[in-house]
């Protein structure tokens, strides 16, 4: 039984190779592979100048393969027959261009811009991208024949290749953060980073504490109880979401930082704790606002509330009508329906929104930085020192190790959000 299975699979593989060779699919397959490699190389060439010899080799291979495609593979109908000719020619021309181009090209001066010299690997990258996008497409066409589905599949690279481009780019960013920061990470640097990490968690915790009830309530209002007003509130929420952090910080600045004469209320301790006003010790009369983590969290919640509210709204909207009406028909009040039917159903969305908001709060720099002007290690009543302010303030040597921790924190929040959403959706919705 076992031997028979192996033999069958071997036979199938042999048959596959046989078909590949006999039907002339080898050259299209190689062209496809080389084109994909060329695309990836083109993406890398846009960012690194040390890969200069590889594009030449790849373009040479590609032009030979395209000529082979023209000479040895059965001709297709219409313009598909002429395309390999055109692109083989383009490959050769770009090959010659790349061989004779100087290392730095003054493209800016040529275009009438500021004199800017660009390394020739940018040109080789752009040429590779421009050539391999169509060659991938029509090598797929040669590979799959002329069925209707082949017509569709040959268009897939138009969508897949840009996505590969973007993912490579993100990969480069993340790789370099880890590559440059990993040397600086040790228990000693954790000692430096403990106050920023604590500040970050205090900031996140306070922000969540403020914005979770408000966000859930707003989401319920938007989807359930708002009626005609929900459109207006939804517009305001979207505006909140897209408000610039800088406007937020400016308005917070106007509220929190000022110098004025101290009055009776200002002499009580409560202002220092909540808003961070402080008596100027040299004059004894003037009162200065400097901002603590609490106003920072309040203004941060303007950005986090819309995230939670939209997620909650989506959760409430996805509740089947039968469940809600069944609960009401059984005599449950609106409050009981809300706590026993609506909230459990929307819980996965609420948790997802909350964690996304946490990620946003962790990465927030502007609000914290604009509100607190000097950084101390006092967590609540003084100024707050978070990871992002640490990264912003520190030099090139120290910033990458803090960046690693911040990145892991944010990506961890989003990853946990994605996982919890699946788990909760299974538990509470049976989906």
């Amino acid at each position, binding site marked *: 039984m076992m031997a028979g299975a192996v033999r069958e699979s071997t036979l199938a593989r042999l048959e596959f190779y046989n078909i590949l060779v006999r039907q002339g699919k080898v050259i299209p397959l190689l062209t496809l592979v080389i084109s994909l490699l060329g695309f990836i190389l083109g993406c890398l060439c846009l960012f690194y100048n040390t890969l200069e010899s590889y594009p030449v080799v790849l373009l040479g291979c590609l032009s030979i393969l395209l000529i082979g495609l023209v000479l040895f593979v059965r001709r297709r109908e219409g313009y598909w027959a002429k395309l390999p000719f055109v692109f083989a020619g383009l490959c050769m021309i770009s090959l010659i261009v790349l061989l004779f181009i100087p290392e730095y090209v003054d493209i800016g001066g040529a275009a009438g811009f500021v004199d800017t010299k660009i390394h020739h690997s940018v040109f080789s990258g752009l040429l590779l991208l421009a050539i391999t996008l169509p060659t991938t497409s029509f090598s797929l066409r040669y590979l799959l024949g002329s069925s209707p589905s082949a017509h569709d599949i040959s268009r897939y690279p138009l969508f897949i290749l*840009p996505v590969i481009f973007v*993912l490579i780019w993100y990969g480069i960013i993340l790789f370099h953060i880890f590559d440059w920061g990993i040397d600086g990470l040790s228990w000693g640097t954790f000692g430096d980073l403990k106050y920023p990490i604590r500040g970050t968690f205090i900031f996140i915790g306070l922000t969540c504490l403020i914005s979770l009830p408000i966000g859930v309530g707003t989401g319920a209002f938007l989807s359930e109880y708002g009626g005609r007003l929900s459109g207006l509130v939804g517009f305001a929420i979207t505006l909140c979401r897209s408000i*610039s952090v*800088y406007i937020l910080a400016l*308005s917070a600045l106007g509220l929190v930082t000022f110098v004025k004469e101290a009055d009776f209320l200002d002499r009580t301790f409560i202002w220092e704790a909540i808003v961070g006003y402080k008596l100027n010790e040299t004059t004894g009369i003037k009162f200065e606002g400097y901002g603590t983590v609490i106003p920072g969290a309040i203004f941060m919640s303007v950005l986090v509330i819309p995230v939670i509210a939209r997620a909650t709204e989506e959760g409430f909207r996805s509740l089947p009508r039968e469940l809600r009406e069944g609960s009401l028909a059984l005599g449950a009040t609106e409050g009981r329906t809300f706590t026993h039917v609506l909230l459990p159903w929307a819980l996965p969305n609420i948790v997802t929104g909350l964690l996304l908001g946490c990620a946003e709060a962790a990465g927030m720099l502007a609000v914290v930085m604009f509100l607190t002007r000097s950084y101390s290690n006092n967590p609540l009543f003084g100024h707050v020192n978070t990871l992002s302010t640490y990264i912003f303030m520190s030099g090139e040597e120290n910033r990458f190790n803090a960046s690693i921790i911040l990145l892991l924190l944010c990506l961890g929040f989003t990853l946990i959000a994605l996982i919890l959403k699946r788990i909760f959706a299974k538990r509470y919705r049976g989906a």
Partner: protein
Amino acid sequence: MNIKRVLRNWPRTVNSILAMISVAMLLFIKYIGYLFHKTVRNWPRVVSFILALIPVGMLVFIVFTVIYKSIPAIHDVGWGELFSTNFISPRGSGSAAYGLVPAIWGSFLAVALAMLIAIPISIAMAVLSSEFSLGFISRGLRATLGLLLGIPPIIYYVMAGILIVANVFMLPNFSTNQCTLYGGIMLAFFIVPFMAPMVEDAIKNVPHNLKEASLALGANRWQTLTGVTLPVAMSGIFYAVMLGVLKAMGDVFVLAGAIGWAKPDNQPDMPDPLWDVLEINPPLTTTGPLLGGTAQAGRSTCDGISCDVAYLSGLLVLIIAFVLLSTAVYLQNRWKRRIAQ
């Protein structure tokens, strides 16, 4: 009715008035109790209304603060100076200039470049993960987008001056490795994870019967995509693009890393050909913090004319955001109605 008789029987009158008042009070208490009972029974309705007022109130507060604080700038500097092409003064030591036009133009250039890159890529991502059923690739792409949304802007700020420009660009005119083109590229990658899920939602919301009708009439999937799905989803895509523009325009730190806070001394106020993307042309959102003096730590309060102009630049960003968002909502509602017909 005899007035004398009424006066003679005054206790009766007073008693009746008192009785009426007490009945009214009883009814009122009953009504209050009814209202209270209703409120308690429907507490989510009331509580959610109160909670929904809080973010709206915060928004109103922010808008009014920015407007109130930016009025002195108009008064002191004047419209003519504010909307001149003289770049703001911090880069020069000479007379104060507060022209915001170069900053607005810088914002426009960076956002336009970012959109040029981000729109095709996010549409490609959305189509790939929703239209083509590629199994684990689609699911993995969706999860990856969700993860990439978590990358904070400070990471882009850190990577900005180092990665691309240092390797392949040589910008001999400037001391720093920054230019507008680079800001556009960075911004594009900042907003792709934000825009792509919304574009995907728009494409998913296209009614199935339209696609199926197209397929049944003999169109293949490519023709269905370009002829039916994308045009019908256009309103949602437009809305997503508008939100992306808002996010790109309001961002501070990605642009601060890639373009910089201030213009170097050797640069002209406006770029020489207007579309010169290889110059450093700081946008509105980095010029404002520079003016407010909040980019550098250690300044105790934000006051003076430059701070007022900073508030005014914030007001400009706010006005642009409001106009774009209202246009997007209006157009989306119109297109929705047209599709529903």
